[in-house]
């Protein structure tokens, strides 16, 4: 700063020099520790076998994590609070929203895609403005043997039991407010909860398993219109669920 100042030869053993060295050393340790800890956030991202299920409109995972500013405004507008923010164990995904659809799926009870409109950075892309355009993933019948419909069985009672906290907007009950799934009782001759509560048209349908008269067995078939909202997974009354969302998978991809 002051070049014209007299240069005083510093004694390396003076208390001031020793203090400066210690301060420098501590700073090096602290800086390395902080940088190392932050970079450790990469490990959970690298270790992921499947990307978490991201909200409607989410762009490619890499760009999604880069652009998300981790503010949770999307969480705030969701009427069923389907979006959950990542935690420390998610590394770089901390503060970035994902869905655990078995606990709470996106039933589009906001009518539009409110989470996308709330996103300030474009991590949820504004190019999606209808639920039909969403591509979160695809539903897949992962445990067909347990499916009630495929066994020709019906379902009676609360879809997920009395203790389940999940919400769903039943248009025929209240057009505007989602209610607890546990507050709604079913009495179905053949279980078709995954098809019945699907919010997207022609995304899933029940198909008879044979043409034999008297054979009540049906199987749910996922169609191209599926957006991966996870309502089928949330509603499946079998434990563990027979139908699951595969995140990020698009129709036609292996």
């Amino acid at each position: 700063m002051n070049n014209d100042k007299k240069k005083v030869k510093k004694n390396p053993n003076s208390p001031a020099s020793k203090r400066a060295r210690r301060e420098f050393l501590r700073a090096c340790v602290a800086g390395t520790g902080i940088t190392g800890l932050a970079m450790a956030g990469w490990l959970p991202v690298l270790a992921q076998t499947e990307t978490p299920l991201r909200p409607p409109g989410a762009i490619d995972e890499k760009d999604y994590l880069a652009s998300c500013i981790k503010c949770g405004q999307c969480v705030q507008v969701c009427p069923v609070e389907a979006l959950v923010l990542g935690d420390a164990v998610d590394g770089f995904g901390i503060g970035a929203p994902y869905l655990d659809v078995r606990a709470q799926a996106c039933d589009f009870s906001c009518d539009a895609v409110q989470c996308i409109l709330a996103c300030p950075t474009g991590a949820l892309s504004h190019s999606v403005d209808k639920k039909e355009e969403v591509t979160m993933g695809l539903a897949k019948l992962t445990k067909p043997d347990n499916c009630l419909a495929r066994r020709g069985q019906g379902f009676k009672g609360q879809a997920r039991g009395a203790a389940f906290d999940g919400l769903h907007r039943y248009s025929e009950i209240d057009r505007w407010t989602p209610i607890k799934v546990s507050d709604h009782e079913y009495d179905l001759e053949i279980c078709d909860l995954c098809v019945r509560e699907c919010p997207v048209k022609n995304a899933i349908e029940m198909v008879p398993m044979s043409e034999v008269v008297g054979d009540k067995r049906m199987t749910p078939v996922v169609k191209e219109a599926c957006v991966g909202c996870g309502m089928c997974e949330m509603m499946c009354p079998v434990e563990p669920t027979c139908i699951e969302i595969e995140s990020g998978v698009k129709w036609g991809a292996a």
Partner: protein
Amino acid sequence: MKRFINSFQLMLGEKFVRPSKDTWTDGAKEMHAHKKTSDQVAIRRQAIKEEIAANHSSTKWKKRRWFSIILINLLFILSFQFDIQLVEGALTASRFIGFHMADLNSALQVVLAYKHMDINLIIGTVTVFLIWWVLGGRTFCSWVCPYHLVSEIGEILHLKLVDKGWIKDHPMDRRIRTVLYVVFAILAFGTGYTVFETISPVGILSRGLTYGASLALIWVGILFLIEVFYSRRFWCRYACPIGLTYGFVGSLSPMKINYNLENCLHEGECRKVCLVPHVLDITKMGYADDVSIDVGADCTRCGMCVDKCPTQALTFKIKGLDGML
């Protein structure tokens, strides 16, 4: 201009260099000479003695500041918990009655990682930039940041323990903050991830307050313990890149803490309470090169020195609106 550059160098971690006498203004020369006369020295000694006996200390600005931090963070919490929708989001980005706001450092991380800036983020960033340009960048730290409050409580405990002689402070080389700032900028750009957000105690704490407890709060707890038992105000002084971002933004702010040489007793009480005491090195005897100096860019306008100073040598000042505060 020279003062401005020095204020930046000081913020980036350089040591304060005592200005040589030939750079002093005439007023400063006169004042320093006057202060060195034997009767002035005697008067000052007497004044310090009386001041120590009276133990002058006000909490006026501290109270206002704590109120501000609590109120702002409470608005975030209430907006979500009771659906008031006044300030939605977290401190990283939010909407204030519908208007976009973005934390400048979070926005910087996103832009570096994503290499693209959405219009809403531009609006939010510009708005917040203007706010902190006017109010003084690091004013964010001491008047808004929830971690600052945690850290201040940690500091109170730390000073008690030091006072009892149970522990001692471990200061560090301040240049580490500048290094970390550059490192995190490079990491965001290079990896394409908002690396700093992973450990940002401000983001973690703000989200924790609004959306409920998270495991990441353990990190905030660890920082708190480091500050209580090892190094006073460790995060804010030596690490936080957010502070440096706001420091840059507020360097030209009209809102300042002003130092008045004439009133100063040079007893150094202000430097003892200051988060960034290097900005107050001008208050050392013979260090001020002018009779009135605005405190540098690293200052958080917390007002601790204003509260502590018994002679009003340090005061809040808005340029062009003198005497308003």
